[in-house]
């Protein structure tokens, strides 16, 4: 009996030793596309956020057969799920995270500082862009591998804009320079095409409203969070930004009732001239415009959100990074595997930039591959004009939901603009005061 036990123990040891397989759990948003890219390791053949990140992880595993990356895809943004996992000490090893929420987690000491992991892999943090590095740095420590910067953009259907007579002689679209010009062009567009000028995400949505609202505040030179613990939305600038969003709706210059997937498909199907959506769709729309027989065929371009308010050219920006939740039980092998994955992702930031996001690794901007990507010249200025909120502001996603909900009410006429803004202010300040 004793012999049998010893033998089985020896076999068990051998088995463990033989399979020096390290498994790390990665949790991300960006969607699921296993039917198209489940086995694809040719990253250059992938298109779109989901296709590229799926192929990157596949390729990493192919290059590192001793590491298994167990991927869990969550519904965007996935923080509620992550919070529950952190509370039950069951968090993944690597998780996709917006720069704007990192301070929530660092304030509770829930993330691993990555300085050592990155330096062990020879990743020099000075290679990241200033915006990306600032996004992931809290109290002098780096808490996520920066992967990109993103903003909302002015996606243009050139075919419809031509029909509306809104193209310059060189074939570029005429972009409004003020709110008055915006409404003139919207009217001209509708007159000529019978369609609304904008395709917006207005239903079951908060993020899009808030990002535009922040952008138009920033364009008026206003930071609503000069005090990170209290917002001031009772300013004339806040009213002007909200009134503008409401007037777009009132004057029929936008599609209505579209949720996020409907708005993405709506622009792609030619429901309006300008799609207000993020950097992440450039790759998909550009690929669609290369194909024949659709609304964007040979007729797509993209610009930053135009400067419609006078003070400064600015646009709200955020970014995606890869954070590592704290786990005292994590082995050295797992930490090393995480480091290898981080190094791989940083090396391949140029591939990720094909989605449309701005690269987080500064040298990618100089590469021929990046410069030959379509429309990147148009949006390069976002690197300078992009602004994030005061990084000390916590609960930025909860705040985004509050502002988005109240603006939704104001835009749809369920509440007067001033009441919506004062309610948003009261709700946000109650939230921040309870932290």
């Amino acid at each position: 009996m004793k012999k049998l036990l010893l033998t089985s123990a020896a076999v068990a040891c051998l088995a463990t030793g033989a399979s020096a397989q390290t498994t790390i759990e990665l949790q991300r948003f960006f969607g699921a596309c296993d039917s198209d890219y489940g086995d694809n390791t040719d990253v250059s053949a992938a298109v779109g956020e989901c296709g590229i990140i799926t192929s990157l992880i596949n390729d990493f595993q192919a290059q590192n057969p001793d590491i298994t990356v167990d991927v869990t895809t969550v519904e965007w943004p996935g923080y509620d799920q992550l919070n529950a996992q952190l509370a039950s000490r069951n968090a993944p090893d690597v998780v996709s995270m917006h720069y704007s929420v990192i301070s929530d987690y660092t304030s509770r000491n829930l993330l691993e500082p990555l300085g050592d992991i990155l330096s062990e892999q020879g990743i020099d943090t000075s290679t990241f862009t200033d915006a990306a590095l600032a996004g992931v740095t809290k109290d002098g420590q780096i808490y996520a591998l920066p992967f990109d910067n993103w903003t909302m953009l002015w996606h243009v259907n050139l075919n419809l804009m031509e029909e509306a007579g809104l193209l310059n002689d060189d074939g570029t679209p005429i972009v409004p320079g003020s709110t008055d010009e915006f409404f003139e062009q919207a009217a001209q567009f509708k007159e000529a095409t019978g369609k609304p000028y904008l395709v917006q995400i207005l239903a079951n949505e908060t993020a899009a409203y808030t990002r535009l609202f922040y952008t138009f505040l920033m364009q008026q030179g206003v930071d609503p969070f000069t005090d990170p613990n209290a917002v001031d939305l009772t300013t004339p600038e806040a009213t002007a930004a909200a009134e503008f969003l409401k007037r777009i709706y009132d004057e029929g210059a936008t599609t209505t009732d579209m949720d996020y997937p409907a708005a993405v498909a709506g622009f792609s199907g030619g429901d309006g001239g300008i799609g207000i959506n993020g950097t992440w769709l450039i790759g998909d729309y550009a690929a669609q415009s290369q194909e024949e027989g659709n609304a964007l065929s040979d007729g797509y371009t993209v610009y930053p959100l135009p400067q419609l308010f006078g003070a400064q050219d600015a646009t709200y920006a955020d970014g995606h990074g890869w954070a590592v939740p704290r786990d005292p039980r994590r082995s050295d092998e797992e930490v090393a595997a995480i480091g290898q994955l981080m190094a791989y992702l940083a090396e391949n930031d140029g591939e990720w930039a094909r989605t449309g996001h701005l690269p987080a690794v500064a040298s990618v901007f100089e590469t021929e591959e990046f410069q030959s990507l379509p429309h990147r010249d148009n949006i390069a200025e976002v690197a300078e004009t992009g602004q994030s909120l005061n990084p000390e502001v916590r609960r930025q996603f909860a705040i985004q939901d509050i502002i988005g909900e109240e603006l939704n009410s104001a835009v749809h006429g369920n509440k007067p603009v001033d009441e919506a803004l004062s309610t948003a202010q009261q709700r946000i300040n109650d939230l921040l005061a309870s932290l």
Partner: protein
Amino acid sequence: MAAPHRQSRLSNALFAAPYLVVFIALLVVPLIWGIYLSLQKADLFGLYGFTGWTNYARVLNDALFWQSVRNTLLFVVVTVPILVGIGLFLGLALNARTGGAAFMRGVYFSSTVLSVTIVTLIWRFVFIPGDGLLSLAFQAMGWQPIGFLSTEGWSLFSVGVATVWWCIGLPMILILAALQQIPGDLYEAAALDNASRWRTFTRVTLPQIRGTLILVATIQIVMQFQLFGQAQLMTNGGPNGTSRPMVLYIYRAAFENWDVGQGAAASELLFLIILVAAMGQYWVTSRGPRT
């Protein structure tokens, strides 16, 4: 001498113990822990001190909370009678020992086994503007399409339709089971007395299934007060909070705002409301003569 059978013995508790252990571990302990949390400043990652009734005061002073209470009450008041009514109708219609009736029972019950995600996906295809089923039907009729999921009033209505479709199986099956328990001789007696179909229904059928109807209504009241997934996935509580139920309010507070104390306080209030509603309903409906 044998002990009188009513005499209590400690060893008898053993029979109830397995259930009691589960009941205490999964219901009593969380309830007490929830009350404790509601008196604390707390997030998911720790407790930061006793705050007394502050969380309750914040919830009770929050217009959004009262809006969610109104939404939930309206939802319960409208959906529960519809669920009981349609459940009764389907039970009566399918109370036959034919293959067709058995098949239709399966059809009507099938929606109940779906997860809330699938249910809301299906109804999203019906309600979304543009390519949605209703939108296409409206366009075909030359009517102006309605933004069912993004218009005040219609959003809660749409959630209600999906909920009734999803939940109708259980009331139907319970009522059907009760109908099949009614002794046939009661109907024979009614037939001998030359009772009309309506009279047979009101004097024989309804009194016989009264207990089950009360049970179905109570279960549905408790279930529909806990409306969450459909509202979160179909409308996210909007627009303007008009389809936000209490559980979504609690979820937002605890998981999105990380304010577990406030979420726990709102949960305890929801518990009290459900308790009062279910007890009230039971008291009102069980006062009549027993048959």
